[in-house]
């Protein structure tokens, strides 16, 4: 059977490519459609009206609309990892090989066991969950929730990783036009011809908006021809960017808009390297909202059967996609617009059963029957519409046979984006609709149907005028077009109906709204939350107004007095993938590599993430099977001879200027003013509240030039803090700052043979003997025959040690050179673990100790805080509460039994007495196995710790369920006198 034969509802004409035949599957069954089809239009062409089951009652449902406002025809598109639930069949473009499944039904859309909910509907009314699943509380998570989720959930996720990529992008424009219907096209023409930088965005894959769906004349030619010609002109303008398949989903502060461009959603899969979607951040000088209007349905008994849809959607299917939803169609309308649908369908040869108009005065037709003053009071048909029951003006009943019913209750301006900055829509009595009101997002104006201008000419004209007014430019000439808007009146629901759906996606009926009101949920916001009206993925685009109108009627108020809820971003759902963009996996944040990274990788180093840095953690050699073997070896070798560690990651900040010393004196709590040129000093920075912020060293290279180092983690925040002090607290100090962290590759060369090793590479004119270059010296030198370098004699390990820095590009070569020249000393590279072990052995504080709660006093550096000067944090560091007798003091701990484990985070308790928070004596911050001591050791903060040397305590860790006996010691396990580092 050919495709055309099976497309029983396909008509002539339309904007589809009949030359292409696209095969697709829905619920396992094969169909064909054409390029230009949506999934919904192709299914309707094939005679398929039933596309899903409703959320709560599992009622059979078909498409209500032909656009993104669709509440019903929600399917899972694609298979496997690419399966995407909750996709609107009405906007999903057809492509070869498309597969889709209906949702919310089991085992099949035609026979759904949960449809029993429909029979039990009396129990599932408004507030059902709140009333039923209240007690006992413990039942909620284990019993109720899983059942509800299975019964009521929308589509399910594939639970596989999304194989596609998503991009983020940034675009700027003078004018962002949202919606490419008649008003948007005219706005673009006006601004584009004036040379403005214009972005015209539309969620559809074709530009034209309603003009693609209407059988009317614009500028003396068919609307479609005018559209094609206009789009061609716009395409030729380099200053106009046409963004199709792009939904502007949110209006954010100060003219920033979020837009999702579906780059590859219309393809079987994205082309290699291409993103599936791009989330654009658009910076718009001005914005015109030309989003048109959304037709509103009328609520009547059983108004949710497949085949019942908005009359305008029917017009779209017939005119644009050449599809009739059925061979025999009726129209139910409260305004003139419904008659246009009847005329268009009739012109295409579709049989019109009747036009049922609620008004007594209606347009009449020579071609089909018009029932004035009549109403649809019920419908029939098991899995789709078969009959409508009509009450005629004289009260008599009549049953009409039809496979589809077009419903038109008038149009609501699409005000969604005008609300995103809390603008409240205003009531327009003439239209019986809300129009944009309150404070619009800055720079936004609204044109066309979105502003309440419902005629075609009005749309064209207001689009041109809006753009002209925005920039004080000449409006493009407005083509002739129909200039009388279809008359519309307020008709929200048919009297006496109960199971008449307002919100088809969340299954909220007229009865539910009445019940909610009866139960006291009288505010619109309460109504929403109690009934879930308008809270589905469509945000109530087709349902909110009906709910409001009914609320108003019950309360005896006017609709504007009841109020309206405002819309929030996003306009339509946005996939999490688009929000994440490229920030997944290893691309979640940038990676920083040290200059010796490639060398370390060759050596088989194990790396660890330290902030964004990857640092070598240890360097295993052949035969080592456990990290401890590598780390112990690195520590021992360094302490016995010499080791080299890449410490480039420490922050380096260049501080220059006549007041550089004064500046550092303000930043560090210890004195810096008198530091001699060629010397380095340890410095502790406090926060203004007296808590330690960061530590490091500052070397004075010249009277007016210091090099400050920070910890790896705090390099950014410390730089920011320094700029704050410079610009905000000392604006007249002559100080200049710049980060040089990445400019220099810096290596710690530590161990008794460190000088000997360095002497082999430092150029001979520089004397680095202990006499000429003593502990805490620094200098600009050259190495390896003339390369500029910096040398600092500082020690984190407690050994004789240097840090040597060369421009980063030479870091790799310097490390190789150090290894080569160090062979005679059995040099080892060491990683962050060995570095950590040696600093714990030496009792140096690091991030674990500078943990945001500790003071200089706690760190045993209380006396460093200069009383002779003011620096950041000194005043509050003197507060009594931070200086109590029993303040925590940094000490060491080691186990009484050599094999016992010291657990970082464990708490210290007196040798006897209760183990509880009230008797807590302190806690261990850092722990490591010390090859030097021969057991694990730890650094700890203990109350009055400095006065408790030798005390036996219990180290308790409820987390690891351990308790060991420890002894309080000095934090300096190695060379407490510091003789080695001064050697």
């Amino acid at each position: 059977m050919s495709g055309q034969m099976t497309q029983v509802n396909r008509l002539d004409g339309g904007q589809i490519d009949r030359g292409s035949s696209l095969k697709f599957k829905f619920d396992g069954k094969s169909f064909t459609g054409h390029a230009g089809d949506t999934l919904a239009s192709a299914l309707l062409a094939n005679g398929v009206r039933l596309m899903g089951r409703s959320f709560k009652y599992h009622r059979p449902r078909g498409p209500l609309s032909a656009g993104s406002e669709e509440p019903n025809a929600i399917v899972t598109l694609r298979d496997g990892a690419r399966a995407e639930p909750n996709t609107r069949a009405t906007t999903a473009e057809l492509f070869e090989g498309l597969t889709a499944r209906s949702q919310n039904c089991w085992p099949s859309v035609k026979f759904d066991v949960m449809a029993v909910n429909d029979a039990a509907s009396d129990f599932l009314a408004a507030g059902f969950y709140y009333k039923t699943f209240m007690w006992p509380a413990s039942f909620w998570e284990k019993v109720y929730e899983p059942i509800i989720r299975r019964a009521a959930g929308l589509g399910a996720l594939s639970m596989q990783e999304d194989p596609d990529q998503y991009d983020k992008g940034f675009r700027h424009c003078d004018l962002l036009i949202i919606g490419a219907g008649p008003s948007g096209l005219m706005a673009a023409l006006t601004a584009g011809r004036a040379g403005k930088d214009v972005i015209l965005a539309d969620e559809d894959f074709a530009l034209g908006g309603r003009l693609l769906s209407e059988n009317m004349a614009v500028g003396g030619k068919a609307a479609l021809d005018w559209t094609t010609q206009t789009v061609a002109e716009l395409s030729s303008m380099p200053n106009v960017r046409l963004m199709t398949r792009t939904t502007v989903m949110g209006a954010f502060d100060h003219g920033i808009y979020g837009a999702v461009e579906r780059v590859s959603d219309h393809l079987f899969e994205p082309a290699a390297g291409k993103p599936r979607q791009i989330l654009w951040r658009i910076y718009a000088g001005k914005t015109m909202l030309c989003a048109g209007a959304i037709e509103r349905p009328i609520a009547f008994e059983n108004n949710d059967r497949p085949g019942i849809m908005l009359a305008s959607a029917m017009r779209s299917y017939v005119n644009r996609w050449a599809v009739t939803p059925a061979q025999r169609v009726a129209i139910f309308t409260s305004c003139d617009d419904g008659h246009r649908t009847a005329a268009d369908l009739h012109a295409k040869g579709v049989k019109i059963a009747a036009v049922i108009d609620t008004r007594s005065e209606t347009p009449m037709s020579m071609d089909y029957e018009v029932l004035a003053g009549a109403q649809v009071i019920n419908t029939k048909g098991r899995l789709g519409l078969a009959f409508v029951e009509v009450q005629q003006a004289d009260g008599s009943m009549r049953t009409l046979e039809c496979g589809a019913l077009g419903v038109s209750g008038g149009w609501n301006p699409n005000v969604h984006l005008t609300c995103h900055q809390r603008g409240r829509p205003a009531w327009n009595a003439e239209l019986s609709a809300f129009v944009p009101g309150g404070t619009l997002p800055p720079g936004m104006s609204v044109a066309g149907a979105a502003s309440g201008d419902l005629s075609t000419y009005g749309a064209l004209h207001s689009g041109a005028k809006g753009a002209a007014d925005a920039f004080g430019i000449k409006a493009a000439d407005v083509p002739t077009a129909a200039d009388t808007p279809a008359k519309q009146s307020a008709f929200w629901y048919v009297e006496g109906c109960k199971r008449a759906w307002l919100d088809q996606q969340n299954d909220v009926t007229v009865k539910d709204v009445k019940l909610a009101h009866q139960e006291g949920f009288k505010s619109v916001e309460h109504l929403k939350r109690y009934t879930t009206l308008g809270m589905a993925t469509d945000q109530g685009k087709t349902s909110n107004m009906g709910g409001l109108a009914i609320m108003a009627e019950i309360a005896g108020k006017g609709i504007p007095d009841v109020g309206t809820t405002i819309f929030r971003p996003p306009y339509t759902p946005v996939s999490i993938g688009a929000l994440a963009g490229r920030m997944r996996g290893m691309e979640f944040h940038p990676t920083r590599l040290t200059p010796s990274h490639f060398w370390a990788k060759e050596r088989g180093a194990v790396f660890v993430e330290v902030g964004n840095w990857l640092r070598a953690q240890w360097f295993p050699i052949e035969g080592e099977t456990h990290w401890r073997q590598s780390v112990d070896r690195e520590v021992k070798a360094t302490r016995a001879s010499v080791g080299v560690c890449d410490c480039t990651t420490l922050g380096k900040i260049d501080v220059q200027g006549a007041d550089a010393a004064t500046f550092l004196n303000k930043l560090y709590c210890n004195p810096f003013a008198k530091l001699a040129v060629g010397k380095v000093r340890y410095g502790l920075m406090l926060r203004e509240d007296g808590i330690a912020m960061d530590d490091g060293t500052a070397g004075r290279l010249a009277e007016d030039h210091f090099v400050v180092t920070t910890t790896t983690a705090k390099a950014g925040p410390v730089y920011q803090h320094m700029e704050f002090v410079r610009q905000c607290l000392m604006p007249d100090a002559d100080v200049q700052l710049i980060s040089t962290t990445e400019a220099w590759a810096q290596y710690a060369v530590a161990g008794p043979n460190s000088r000997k090793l360095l002497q082999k590479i430092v150029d001979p004119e520089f004397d680095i003997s202990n006499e000429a270059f003593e502990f805490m010296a620094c200098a600009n030198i050259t190495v390896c025959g003339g390369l500029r370098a910096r040398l600092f004699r500082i020690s984190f390990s407690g050994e004789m040690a240097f840090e040597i820095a060369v421009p980063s590009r030479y870091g790799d070569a310097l490390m190789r050179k150090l290894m080569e020249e160090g062979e005679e000393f059995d040099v080892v590279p060491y990683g962050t673990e060995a570095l950590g072990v040696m600093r714990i052995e030496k009792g140096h504080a690091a991030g674990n100790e500078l943990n945001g709660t500790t003071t200089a006093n706690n760190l045993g550096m209380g006396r460093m805080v200069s009383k002779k000067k003011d620096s950041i944090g000194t005043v509050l560091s003197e507060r009594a509460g931070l200086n109590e007798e029993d303040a925590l003091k940094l000490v060491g701990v080691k186990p009484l039994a050599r094999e016992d484990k010291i657990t970082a985070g464990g708490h210290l308790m007196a040798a006897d007495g209760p183990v509880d928070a009230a008797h807590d004596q302190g806690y261990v911050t850092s722990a490591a196995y010390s090859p030097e001591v021969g057991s694990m050791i730890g650094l700890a903060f203990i109350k009055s710790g400095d006065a408790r040397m030798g005390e036996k305590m219990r180290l308790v860790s409820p987390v690891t369920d351990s308790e060991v006996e420890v002894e309080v010691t000095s934090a300096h396990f190695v060379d407490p006198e510091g003789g080695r580092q001064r050697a």
Partner: protein
Amino acid sequence: MHSLTPITALGGQTVRVDTIGNAELRESDGLALASVHGRLGHEAACRAHLSDLLDGRLPAVGKAVLRDPEAAFWTGPDQWMVGAPFASHEDLASQLKSRFGDTASITEQTDAWACFDLQGSAMEQVVELLCPINVRQMTTGDAQRTSIHHLGCFVLRRDPSDWVRILGPRASAGSLHHAIVTAMRSVA
């Protein structure tokens, strides 16, 4: 002449070049950089020195003076980055120090930055996927600091105008390169 062999920011012996669609990305290791920050009370003298260095053209806010491969661009109030050919000006900072004396703080910045030249008709589209700057409105000689993949970068629009130079933190050269190449594939 010293004996140490440099590597490029991406870790190679030679610069990396990627051509994808209508864009070419070329790593550059030929640029020496030094920051110049006018000292308090010496701002005018500092500007005079800089202007002198650049044949009377002082980079204004958000601007660069281009003299390929030499350039100077504005980086902050009374702050500029000066560039010169690495081969002849590896000691750029000390050269500038002699010239500016006490009127400015000079800091070597050569290896603080990875330098990438992005060129081709797709350049603007690539930049749009990378950072929030308004690249379409940028003209030759514009210099902006911006954020690419969370990395603070300078973007300089050069001559011809289908060419931007991107300076990003050297340690993240690999991540920056990956981000740019990914964007190039996206628009190709």
